């Protein structure tokens, strides 16, 4: 079972270490973790994706809630939230590859952000499944290296997290 969890934290000394340390010592395996400032610089927002059963998810949420610098923890349900991820991927640039990369980029609404005679770099944004699909398309062409941001997510409509 995959869960997306949003966490509002105070921007205080060591808060990211507290959160990531919690995963380690409680034995939680997380898929991704992203963190960034919010509109209020006193707070950051962390988005965690996790594969695990209900027990693991509930324990993670409850243990997070106990950390002093954490203001709110919310499990984002797939139907009422949306998520995005960004990837930069560098693929070998050969005459045979070139048009295929360009075509795939167009279909996936990706952007070529760097171009040299050796390699092309493409920026793709979307749900993780779309990113995964793009990787599959690029694999036979020769992926040189790639980098994913991990998932960020918000609730749909007017629902917000209280700080």
């Amino acid at each position, binding site marked *: 079972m995959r869960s997306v969890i949003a966490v509002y934290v105070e921007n205080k*000394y060591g808060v990211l270490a507290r959160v990531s340390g919690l995963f380690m*010592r409680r034995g939680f395996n997380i898929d991704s973790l992203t963190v960034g400032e919010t509109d209020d610089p006193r707070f950051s927002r962390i988005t965690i994706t996790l594969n695990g059963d209900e*027990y693991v998810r509930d324990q993670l949420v*409850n243990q997070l809630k106990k950390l002093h610098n954490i203001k709110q923890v919310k499990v984002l349900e797939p139907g009422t939230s949306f998520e995005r991820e960004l990837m930069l991927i560098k693929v070998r640039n050969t005459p045979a590859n070139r048009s295929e990369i360009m075509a795939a980029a167009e279909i996936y609404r990706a952007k070529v952000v760097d171009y040299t005679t050796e390699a092309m770099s493409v920026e793709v944004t979307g749900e993780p499944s779309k990113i995964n699909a793009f990787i599959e398309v690029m694999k036979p062409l020769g992926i040189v290296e790639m980098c994913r941001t991990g998932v960020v997510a918000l609730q749909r409509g007017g629902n917000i997290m209280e700080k």
Partner: protein
Amino acid sequence: MKKEAKIMTGSQIVIETLIEQGVTDVFGYPGGQVLNLYDELYKASDRINHILTAHEQGASHAADGYARATGKVGVVIATSGPGATNLVTGIATAMLDSIPMVAITGNVPTSLIGRDSFQEINITGVTMPITKHNYFVTDVNELADTIREAFRIAISGRPGPVLVDIPKDVQLAECEFELAAPVEPFAENEADDADIERAVELINQAKRPYIYIGGGAAGQGMAMGIMALAEKLDAYIGCSFMGLSAIPSDHPRLLGMQGMHGHFASSMANKEADLIIGIGVRFSDRATGNTAKYAKRAKIIQLDTDLAEINKNVKVDVGLIGNLVSSFNRIYNRVEKLENPEWVKMVEGFKKHEAEIAAEAERRAKAKMPPKKIFDIINEIKDASTVIATDVGQHQMWTAQYARFERPRRFASSGGLGTMGYGLGAAIGAQIGSGDKTVLITGDGSFGMNLNELATAVSYNCPIVTVVMNNGVLGMVRQWQTLFFGKRYSNTVLQRKTDFVKLADAFGMPAERVETPEEFRAAFERAMKHDGPYLIDAIIDKDEFVLPMLPPGGSVDDIITDVKEEK
């Protein structure tokens, strides 16, 4: 009283904030990065008492024992680097047993942080997993409020240790200081009405109710309520190790500790119950055995202030998350009076069987000094105010089984972490906090770990009677080796030549060695009358076992009540 701001240094602010928060005693050990703090302690010595231990670990256990005996926050001070790392075991012990503690450490000046400076250690990083929260203070203007918040976190909800690390330049910097009131705990959650309703329904249907209490219930002033609930429901009370001393030992509804070395009757009642009401207890592996086989017949209601404890170790039917006393009272006031004569008959049968096992064991005991005899004598001579502290091992489990408690906060022992070497420091803290006679039950293994604190007990003339249950082996580990490792006694036979009586003499305190219950009685009477520390080296047989025992990963069905003759 008119409040006025004064300009103070960080060090002065630390001491003034401690005094403001009601701290009267602190434990610690000076060093390079807390020189300024100790200078202020010197100046404030008429308002705050500092107890110098032999080692920072002893100070951390003393602060813990102090907190257990008084219910107040235990405070410990240490210098940077090794001073700080020496606190780690004590902080972890407090964390696992939910003991309120504030640890204050000095650190190198901020300009030297991160350069592996002399005696520099990132103690906030080290203690992150073993504190409720910790702080690295970089601005003197935030110092007072940080210490106040540390106290607040330490006492709120499920208590625990908080560490405040203060670099030397922050201790020297100046700012305005204004006195504040002692902190109040954060408001706690209140359990949902619907959950209370479900709990009440389950209780009203119960035919075999069992109340299972833990450290959360001990020392909360809940004893009267819990005893009344047991009467109201025709229920029995069992406890975890941490729940010991919460209910007077002679209460007819109390079956004692359940679990690995628990009482036969409580483990059986726990197994046969159709309803378990867990109060401030985390269903630890030592108390439940194999959770897959645990209490299969029972519905479980769990009351806890810590939301992460609900369903953590055992899946419960109703979890009441919130202030324990409040959840308890809401249930108590709404449940019906129950009569469960068949259950009473069944449990009284377990108690009878337990008594028979004990009597049989006593009849067959060949040892010159059976451990139980030691406790019989201690129970007879000590009074209700006597604090009992222990180390970890066989002697600790015998204490759990045999020591009798008349009131809460008279027991200090490392339950969750199982810290050998905890006892003497804790006894010192508990004695100083309570002002009452304290008995330390220890073993020759545990005692050997931190016996340097005898120096502290002598310096402060603490009336602590140390009873070393000396069997020349690491008894608990050896017991496992006997039962589960084919009697291969790897590194558990100490064969040391340490003479604890001479050792006590060297530390400047009286001591004697005893080998029979009669000798022990006479020595213990002398020791209890002595004004100051006293040591009794009580020689026991190495083949005395802690029984009953549920094998690790087993259940009450696998209970071992007897071990075939040694040799």
